[in-house]
């Protein structure tokens, strides 16, 4: 590392702190995990990973996270649009409220949503009346994941929408384009990238989410068991190898989502650069 070329002092000092801290907090635990996991052998790994109960938990985690991220994509776009483009009473409060899922501990969200959507809950009695079991079901898990993911899409679309050059839209309207056509052809293409970013972040967060889901899930094997919960279950049985194997698959899922996002953004910036 060519520290001699650095004009500003403090390179070695900040490098030292950063490296020491990352080693202690991130690299050492990660290494311990990988070391332990590598000791279990491929047979044991596969045995755990393709166990039907475990496989079903991945499906639940993946499916509910995907559904919640898609729903948040729609509502996040709507929220960003309304907050950037319109003025109305209470707008500032609404804007501040969007970050609530970041600030509210997930366990609190979890017990509140469970009570709300349980059979005799304020919203649950309505859903159960329609024949939809809204708690202790895949539906309930999705509700919890929507709650957790609300800020991601809204907050990544909002600044892009705010900084959009209005002259393009004005030109489109001047040439007689309908508002819908203007939105679809002029505004929306600019929002695809932040929309996907928010979507991927919400998706990845959903797969790993535990606190808000564990109460409302009901945790029935083969039905409403999510992958993080299964890790907890394996830990309680002192089956650390199985816990590690499930963790590896979960990490692979999250990395795949974030890598796909990264790849897409690189492709896009390259295309725009030319």
């Amino acid at each position, binding site marked *: *590392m060519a*520290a001699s*070329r*650095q*004009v*500003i*002092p*403090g*390179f070695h000092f*900040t490098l030292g*702190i*950063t490296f020491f*801290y*990352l080693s202690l*907090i*991130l690299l*050492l*635990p990660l290494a*311990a*995990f990988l*070391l*332990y996991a590598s000791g279990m052998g491929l047979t044991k790994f596969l045995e755990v990973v393709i166990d039907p109960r475990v496989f079903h938990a991945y499906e639940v985690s993946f499916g509910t996270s995907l559904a919640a991220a898609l729903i948040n994509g729609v509502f996040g776009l*709507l*929220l960003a649009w*309304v907050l950037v*483009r*319109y003025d*109305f009473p209470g707008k500032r409060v609404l804007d501040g*409220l*969007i970050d*609530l899922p*970041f*600030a*509210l*501990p*997930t*366990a*609190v969200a979890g*017990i*509140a949503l469970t*009570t*709300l959507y349980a059979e005799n809950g*304020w*919203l649950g009695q309505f859903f159960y009346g329609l024949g939809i079991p809204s708690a202790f079901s895949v539906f309930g898990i999705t509700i919890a994941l929507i709650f957790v993911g609300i800020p991601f899409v809204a907050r990544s679309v909002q600044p892009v929408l705010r900084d959009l050059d*209005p002259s393009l839209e004005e030109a489109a309207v001047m040439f007689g384009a309908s508002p819908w056509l203007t939105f679809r052809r002029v505004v929306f293409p600019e929002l695809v990238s932040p929309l996907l970013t928010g979507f991927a*972040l919400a998706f*990845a967060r959903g797969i*790993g989410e*535990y*606190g808000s889901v564990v*109460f409302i899930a009901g945790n029935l094997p083969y039905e409403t068991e999510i992958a*993080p919960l299964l*890790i*907890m279950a394996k*830990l309680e049985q002192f089956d*650390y190898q199985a816990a590690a194997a499930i*963790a590896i698959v*979960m*990490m692979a899922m999250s990395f795949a989502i*974030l890598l796909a996002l990264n790849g897409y953004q690189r492709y896009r910036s390259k295309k725009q650069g030319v």
Partner: protein
Amino acid sequence: MQQKKGVLAWALILIAVLFLLVMLVLPLVLVASEALAKGWQVYVKAITEPFAVKALALTLEATVLAVISNTLFGLASAFLLTKFAFRGEALLGACIDLPFAISPVVAGLFFVMLFGRMSPIYPFLRAEHIAIVFAVPGIILATVFVTFPFITRELVPVMEAQGRDEEEAAATFGASGWQIFRHVTLPNIKWALLYGVILCTARAMGEFGAVSVVSGHVRGKTNTLPLHIEILYNEYNFTAAFAVASILVILAIVILILRNLVEWRAKRGLKHAD
């Protein structure tokens, strides 16, 4: 840019408001209503009960320690990433973002594997009577892991936009690293820093999954406030669970208000600078 509002605009505003009311406000109202369901006396008793007070103390301890150490790390790593050019910069940035892709439950597992019974260093820890996992240090480490990217993430874009010119000029005039940081860098990033600290605090006090794995759930010893809520809830002591949850709701609302104040001040500061 403001548009003239038609029926469509009002419809969109209405949907956005309804969505946030049902998804975000209703759970908060429910927490308050359930907490006070049996009157003030029961409420006060629930939050002043010794285990609740101890859990609050541990939550505050873990949060304060995590925020302080993550602030130091955030400042050092953001300074390193933005003020110096060196090989491996991108890799370092990716490492810092890693906790976003890792489920908190898996993060907890990392620490169990580093310090728990299956760890190569466990015999040493045992001989020295050092308890990390299923004890307070493990809770603090897990909290630090989950929250360490937040401050770096807030600082890097701001410091990047600021560039290196001011620091380089100060260095040319012979200012020391500390002087440069104190008088040149810090005034430029104070709002972003405060913002990052607020986000980090919010996540730290509410962390559930990671802490749940490493805590071992020892009442009065290793239970944080979110874990205490889980225990009360699982014992069907709903009123007490929601009473304790209401403390976290109040903290979350305070954090949201602070966050918005900081954002507002930062924007006003920018306008004055222009």
